[in-house]
């Protein structure tokens, strides 16, 4: 019992340090550039963590999460563009609702097929949404994207918006973390490991897959909606399959079997992109090599390998005492 409490305290304090570090970014740095970077990390982290509930936890590899990310962003972008800035927050709500509804409908279609067919269908629907957004110039602005998305009231201030993002992301990740370690989360992990046995527990496999598909889409749309206000502009690239690919990369890099893996993965990729991108125009080549090396050296992801080292050290410590 005591060791449990200690572990909980240690986890909570680590979590506290991370939140504090993000909270201090605007205080310690006068450059809005750093705040903007931290903002990107936070939003991509939410995207990656909610994606990992689908993939790492439940075993459903979607290549179409950009659809919901884009839906969240374009709900905000379009409504602010056509109706005005005061619609910013309601538009986020609309985006969340739309994402949940669309995920429910699409989910009923794509979850019927398993494995690689699921992956391909999510990719197909994602690309379809990208094509529509790209071609429907009159409504969506097509390749030009949407500019001048100004958050309302006090949120127009970059620092205020940053704290808004921080609060929403931390709360969302906290909710997802509770979910991951709840009975529902346990059932999702069981669905990945042995769906047949789950049926013999008297539980419906597809129903649980649909639930997490909708939940993941919801939080992905939330990340998209938040992103709309960070740079004040959105672009069809948010819906392109490479966006779905990038979130997979972040998740793999951090470790798919660790709840906070995708969080760390997102931070590392964005920092690498930022550092390398500032120095060379061949940044994508360099990033590719760095990521390949990391994945080869740390097959369980950064957080996964850290956890392995920690458990090895703990075992060695136990051995000494005995």
């Amino acid at each position, binding site marked *: 019992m005591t060791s*449990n409490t200690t572990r909980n305290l240690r986890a909570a304090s680590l979590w506290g340090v991370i939140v504090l570090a993000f909270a201090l970014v605007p205080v310690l740095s006068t450059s809005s550039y750093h705040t903007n970077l931290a903002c990107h990390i936070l939003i991509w982290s939410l995207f990656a963590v909610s994606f990992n509930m689908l993939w790492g936890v439940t075993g459903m590899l979607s290549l179409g999460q950009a659809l919901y990310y884009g839906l969240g962003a374009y709900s905000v972008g379009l409504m602010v563009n056509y109706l005005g800035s005061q619609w910013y927050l309601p538009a986020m709500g609309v985006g969340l609702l739309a994402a949940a509804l669309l995920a429910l409908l699409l989910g009923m279609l794509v979850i019927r097929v398993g494995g690689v067919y699921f992956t391909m269908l999510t990719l197909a629907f994602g690309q379809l949404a990208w094509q529509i957004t790209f071609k429907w110039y009159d409504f969506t602005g097509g390749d030009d994207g949407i500019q001048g998305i100004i958050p309302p009231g006090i949120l127009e201030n970059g620092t205020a918006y940053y704290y808004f993002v921080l609060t929403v992301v931390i709360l969302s990740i906290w909710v997802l973390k*509770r*979910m991951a*370690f*709840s*009975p*529902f*989360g*346990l*059932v999702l*992990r*069981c669905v990945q*490991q*042995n769906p*047949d*046995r789950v*049926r*013999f*527990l*008297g*539980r*419906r496999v597809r129903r649980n897959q649909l639930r997490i598909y909708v939940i993941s889409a919801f939080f992905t749309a939330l990340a998209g909606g938040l992103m709309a206000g960070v740079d004040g502009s959105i672009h069809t690239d948010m819906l392109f399959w490479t966006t779905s690919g990038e979130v997979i990369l972040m998740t793999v890099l951090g470790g798919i*079997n660790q709840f906070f893996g995708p969080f760390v993965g997102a931070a590392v990729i964005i920092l690498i992109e930022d550092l390398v991108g500032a120095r060379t125009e061949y940044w994508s080549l360099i990033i590719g090599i760095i990521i390949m090396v990391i994945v080869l050296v740390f097959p369980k992801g950064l957080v996964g390998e850290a956890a392995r080292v920690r458990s090895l050290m703990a075992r060695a410590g136990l051995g000494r005492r005995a």
Partner: protein
Amino acid sequence: MTPILQLDSVDKAFGGLKVTSHVSFSVMPGEISAIIGPNGAGKTTLFNQITGHLLSDAGAIYFKGENIVGRPPQQIVARGVGRAFQIASIFPDETVLDNVRVACLSKLGQTRKFWRSVLDYRQATDDAHGILASLGLDAQAHRKAFELAHGDQKLLDIGIALALKPTLLLLDEPTAGMSPEERHQMRVLIKKLWKEFELTLVFIEHDMDMVFGIAQVVRVLQQGALLAEGTPEQIRANKQVITAYLGEDF
């Protein structure tokens, strides 16, 4: 007394191959019985038909008086049919405790809860510990299931089934792949569980010590059909069974 499980002329064919044909028998509540027969006799297929894994082509399967043919596994499980598999069907990356706890949560209807940690569900956790204690797996509760020895994984599979508090438990070759020593322990344990959990128990087995040691009724399947049914003594003396399966020197 009315049977708890009644098969009425049950058929299953894969293409032209008849795997089970016109199988009829009744299982009484509280009975412990064995199904034996050569490989390919249709024993596991019969289990799959009872649990809804396979849809029967013809015939009826009554459980507690209700025809369950056409119902999906989760509904049949909910009515009280439990099952352990020939190859242990467990959740390898979860702890031993969580393997059983998830089944306890399912029985208590708590698998949709998404807010509190699984650790906070006392009832399910206590139930799971109780089952692990009955199986002698409590010392390994916090190990990952894939780390268990083969025999313990099979026990865990039974534990998951027991957690659902079945009235009828089907065990598919509980001693398959075990050493003689392990087989003996399993035999003792199954008899203990049968009494402790007040089960109706049907098991498929090739281990004749187990079949003739603990079964009250033995049913013999051959080429998908029920060849014989009776007490161990009757089966042992049955000429047809000796020719088809047991062999002269049994």
